[in-house]
């Protein structure tokens, strides 16, 4: 049967068109019930006895949710107890149009065989397709289509005693359905009839009907509709920007304006913030200049539960503080929200003061997110736990956003829970690999076949060694070196051939592209590819035959490249060493075996390469890095050490750089418009201002006109009295840099390819395919350019590559933050029951605080000066704080006491107190602890 879809559309130019489209109706759309004899479904989805675990619904039931239920109550549908659900095409289409997030989740449910969700194509079925009536609105038509389909199912499955339950919250739809004899229920009633209702009921999203409690007075101004925002944006009366809440003061925020870089508008008070939240895209109106304020230096936390009406009086607090200041900034107020940035939030429950209440507040782990009100009956269970919640809405009448409970993560302070929180807050995919991904793995025992030998160069005889940090199981690089007959050297870098196992377009490839990199936390590793590949088949372990992608150079006496070859190969690593082991072999003149000899050659060449690189203007930067020694039983940190850098570290690094640069050139030659490269933009000179000022205070001038100049002047800045001075300068220089980025060569101008930090005109990542997805792509491109592999259509798609790069950059940044947060977490655990005095150096002097670096722990902390009873005087020109005859300036040595501030259970933080120089009334004395004794006890 054929119908035509006729509708009227407006074109971009404003012409009115009548569009006619064909719509074919079929009779081969099946019900997917296994016992059904009329349908010829090959793989029916529903179970043959689809029961609902319910007190009221006895017998066989299939559930049909309507569009709004799917859109708003996805957390319920996702629950494992909800199965045998019919998703109608009408509903599917509406969800697709209205919410990308709900759509994604719905698709996950549909593809999960456990869930038994079936997409019934009712719009293509000849019996369930309906045409819109003349006076019917599209929504009404869709509701009718849903009812028609439900009725069809009911009739169709009657012989098998299967009943249909339509779940809808729409009253009129419900009534009409009841009239035509369809069983219906609202979500709330349906969930309450289930046996595990307590758990599920908490996941119920608050629907509009429930939350818009009439009679309440509005707390906030109404948001403008999108149409009037657009008009306002066009006329310039409103400005669009990203909302950033302040970490320290819940009554203050700023909005970064889109069009003007660096312009940020201050938003003060909850009235002006008007329900905007961290990361939202908002439209703001600038206040008249007479109302402009300066930002407050107060630190305010939203404590206790407050009435809805109290916001106005709270706002006054901040205004009082400000009134006496001079420096004014442009202020604004939020008039509308263009795009919400709501995600799932980790937090902890703040129980209501009333014993029997079901409405409680959740304090999110991210300080910039306001408290969220949820409804739960299991408050006692959730108390003291980390929980995951979702925001449903923020009505005008409520001081807090309304949300619902999603999942219990575990007890607060438990390391596993805290790690989970850390991963969720940094948006790191850490779920187990799906069955589809695992199906892509090679089966064990895995061995090299004749076929492989034909295609690859056999390098198993070479003395190849790998050098890695201790405890590393994902070894992705190995080296070899020997002297050729003509006096030159052959050097090979062998990289694990991951792209051999991960073919483009497979499930494992999609998953790896999404994860983008392996995330290293202190006590956990979140793999990009399943462990079988990362720690076994791809890992270049000692004494085992492995596939590799090799770069082989001929270098002359001065480490100049004579020629370079790329090849896929088979290698057998002779030894997997740690940096320390390799260093020992090099230094121990007794050893003269092949491995040691080649290590010595490599080391010699690396030194020349490094010198050459520094001459080119490559920067040597520093960042304090630490290693935790873990208790083998409790996995709690027992000692902290700063990471040591050995010669062998830089040896491996040099050859990796060499390989990366060589690869970058090769793939760029072959794929000028779609190679995946990495660039590091030169930072604007304004970034260096504070660094230059700090160096000047010690009598050094830094030249920042180019990377080379900077490297040279950093090299010269050595203070004999303070051996740590140079390292600190380098740490500060690191902070001035911009992020390095992946990009697709076709979308960036060639002059911007430059890698500032390495002083390389072109650079990419090639050497760690086990832990970075970028390297896998580079491997594939390189394989194509040496004709070792067939090209894939996606390689040539500039847009796809750039989208991929954007994801890689985002994940890379998040992985870095997560890594740092993990160090922070462990530092906290380490200092949990300790109070320690330690030497530190002043890194920066701020207006109200000094920032201190403690080299022993690689730790950085702040001592606030503005809350002290003693008055400090800040001198802006020299950047110093003065108190009496004691002056603090950058690089000064101080002694501080480190402890944990436990006053706030969710945000336990390190607390620094000044010990020396001693300032009466401010510094603490050194009596609580005696370091020598402590050391004795430990040993």
């Amino acid at each position, binding site marked *: 049967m054929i119908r035509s879809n006729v509708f009227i559309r407006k074109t971009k130019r404003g012409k009115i068109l*009548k*569009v006619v*489209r*064909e*719509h*074919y109706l*079929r009779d081969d759309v099946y019900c997917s019930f296994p016992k059904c004899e009329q349908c010829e479904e090959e793989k029916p989805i529903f179970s043959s006895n689809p029961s609902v675990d319910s007190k009221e619904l006895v017998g066989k039931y299939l559930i049909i949710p309507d569009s709004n239920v799917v859109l708003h109550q996805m957390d319920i549908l996702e629950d494992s107890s909800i199965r045998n659900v019919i998703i109608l095409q009408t509903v599917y289409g509406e969800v697709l*149009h209205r919410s990308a997030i709900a759509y994604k989740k719905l698709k996950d449910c549909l593809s999960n065989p456990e869930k038994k969700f079936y997409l019934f*194509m009712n719009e293509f079925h*000849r019996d369930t397709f309906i045409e819109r009536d003349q006076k019917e609105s599209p929504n009404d038509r869709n509701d009718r289509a849903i009812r028609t389909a439900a009725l069809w199912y009911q009739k169709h499955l009657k012989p098998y005693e299967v009943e249909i339950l339509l779940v809808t919250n729409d009253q009129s739809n419900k009534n009409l359905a009841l009239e035509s004899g369809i069983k219906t229920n609202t979500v709330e009633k349906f969930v309450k009839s289930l046996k595990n209702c307590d758990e599920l009921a908490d996941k119920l999203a608050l629907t509009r009907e429930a939350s818009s409690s009439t009679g309440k007075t509005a707390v906030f101004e109404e948001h403008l509709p999108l149409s009037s925002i657009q008009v306002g944006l066009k006329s310039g009366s409103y400005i669009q920007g990203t909302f950033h809440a302040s970490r320290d003061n819940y009554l203050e925020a700023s909005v970064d304006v889109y069009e003007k870089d660096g312009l940020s508008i201050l938003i003060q008070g909850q009235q002006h913030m008007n329900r905007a939240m961290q990361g939202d895209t908002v439209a703001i109106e600038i206040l008249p200049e007479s109302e402009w304020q300066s930002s407050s230096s107060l630190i305010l936390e939203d404590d206790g539960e407050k009435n809805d009406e109290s916001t106005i009086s709270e706002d006054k607090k901040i205004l009082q503080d400000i009134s006496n200041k001079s420096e004014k900034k442009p202020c604004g107020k939020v008039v509308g929200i263009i795009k919400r940035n709501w995600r799932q939030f980790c937090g902890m429950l703040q129980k209501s003061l009333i014993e029997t209440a079901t409405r409680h507040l959740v304090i999110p782990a991210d300080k910039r997110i306001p408290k969220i009100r949820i409804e739960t009956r299991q408050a006692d269970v959730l108390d003291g736990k980390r929980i995951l919640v979702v925001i449903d809405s923020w009505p005008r009448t409520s001081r807090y956003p309304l949300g619902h409970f999603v999942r219990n993560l575990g007890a607060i302070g438990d390391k596993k829970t805290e790690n989970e929180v850390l991963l969720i807050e940094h948006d790191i995919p850490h779920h187990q690999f799906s069955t589809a991904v695992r199906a892509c793995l090679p089966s064990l025992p895995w061995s090299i076949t004749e076929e492989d030998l034909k295609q690859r160069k056999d390098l198993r005889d070479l003395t190849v060694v790998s050098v890695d940090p201790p405890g590393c199981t994902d070894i992705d690089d190995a080296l070899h070196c020997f002297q050729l007959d003509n006096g030159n050297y052959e050097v090979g870098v062998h990289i694990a051939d991951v792209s051999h196992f991960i073919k483009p377009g497979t499930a494992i490839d999609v998953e790896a592209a999404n994860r983008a990199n392996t995330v290293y936390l202190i006590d956990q590793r979140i793999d990009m590819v399943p462990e079988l590949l990362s720690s076994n088949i791809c890992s270049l372990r000692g004494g085992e035959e492995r596939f590799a992608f090799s770069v082989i150079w001929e270098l002359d006496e001065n480490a100049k490249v004579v020629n370079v070859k790329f090849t896929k190969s088979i290698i057998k690593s002779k030894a997997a060493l740690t940096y320390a082991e390799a260093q020992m072999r090099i230094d121990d003149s007794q050893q003269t075996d092949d491995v040691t000899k080649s290590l010595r050659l490599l080391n010699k060449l690396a030194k020349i390469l490094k010198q050459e690189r520094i001459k080119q203007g490559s920067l040597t930067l520093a960042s304090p890095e630490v290693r935790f020694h873990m208790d083998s039983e409790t996995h709690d940190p027992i000692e902290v050490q700063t990471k040591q850098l050995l010669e062998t570290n830089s040896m491996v690094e040099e050859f990796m750089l060499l390989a990366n640069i060589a690869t970058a050139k090769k793939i760029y030659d072959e794929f000028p418009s779609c190679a995946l490269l990495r660039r590091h933009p030169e930072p604007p000179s304004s970034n260096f201002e504070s660094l230059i000022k700090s160096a000047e205070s010690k009598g050094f001038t830094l030249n920042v006109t180019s990377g080379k100049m900077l490297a040279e002047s950093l090299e010269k800045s050595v203070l004999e009295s303070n051996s740590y001075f140079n390292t600190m300068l380098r740490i500060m220089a690191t902070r001035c840099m911009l992020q390095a980025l992946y990009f697709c060569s076709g979308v960036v101008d060639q002059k911007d390819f430059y890698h500032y930090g390495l002083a390389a005109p072109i650079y990419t990542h090639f050497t760690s395919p086990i832990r970075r997805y970028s390297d896998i792509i580079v491997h594939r491109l390189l394989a194509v350019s040496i004709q070792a592999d067939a090209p894939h259509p996606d390689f040539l798609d500039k847009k796809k590559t750039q989208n991929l790069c954007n994801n890689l950059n985002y994940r890379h940044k998040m992985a870095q933050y997560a890594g740092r947060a993990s160090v922070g977490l462990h530092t906290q655990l380490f200092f949990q029951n300790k109070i320690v005095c330690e030497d530190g150096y002043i890194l920066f002097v701020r207006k109200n605080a000094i920032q201190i670096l403690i080299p022993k722990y690689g730790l950085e902390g702040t001592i606030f000066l503005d809350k002290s009873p003693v008055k400090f005087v800040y001198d802006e020109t020299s950047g110093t704080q003065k108190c009496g005859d004691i002056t603090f300036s950058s690089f000064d040595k101080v002694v501080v006491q480190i402890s944990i501030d436990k006053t706030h259970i969710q945000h336990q933080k390190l607390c620094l107190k000044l010990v020396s120089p001693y300032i009466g009334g401010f510094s603490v004395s050194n009596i609580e602890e005696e370091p020598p004794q402590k050391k004795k006890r430990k040993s």
Partner: protein
Amino acid sequence: MAAWELLKDQNFRLDGRKPTELRRIETRLGVFPNADGSAYLEQGNTKVLATVYGPHEVKGGRGRSNPDKAVINCQFSKSAFSSSERKTHMKFGRNSSETNQHLVQALNAAVMSHLYARCQIDVYVEIVQSDGSDFCACLNASTLALIDAGIALKDIVTCCSATIVDEKSVVDVNYVEESSGSAVLIVGLLPKDEQIAYMQMKGRLHADHLEKLLDCAVEGCRNINNILKERIGEHLKTHSSHFTLTRPATPGRAERSRPAIA
């Protein structure tokens, strides 16, 4: 594009077809008694009229005539009301003269032109309504009109389009699919000898996909060919009593991949 979401997950196209299903095809032969041969063809919402005049003496100077074979002359046009926006199409514009050339090329491969030496055959095609795969419909209609005119053909030349979206090839593309930006391949086939009479590609495509796409289009051509044969048979049965026609050899395949039309 939302249209392709459904294809990726559920293997359905926006209009309810499966990837390998053609649109509904309606034909009528001999619609204009004044012409020597004529045909009307609908492929979904694409509707085409074709008329054939000839073979007749070469018009417009002796110089154009060929002593060995017939000269085929095609004239393509598109009515102003054929698409949703009313627009007059130039009859002698660059676009239509290009299409003319293409039609001539495809028909030359099918017509036994050596039988009509020093003659001219005129084919006039008019698109009445356009909804994607316009050229395919034109070529298919011209073939029918030539058959109606009784001109000797090597084989029924049929034409079909195909495109590829996210690794899935889709046959007989309609306007919405055509304008989604992916490459469209048009193939004209002489099914008996498995010869390609005409091939055209619009847009860029990775070479890896070409084979798959070509297979898909060729399969579409075969199915169209079977349908056309059937229709010609029916036409002949009703219009000439002393004519028997054997059924097409493999009807099973054709029926399986045709859209489920009730």
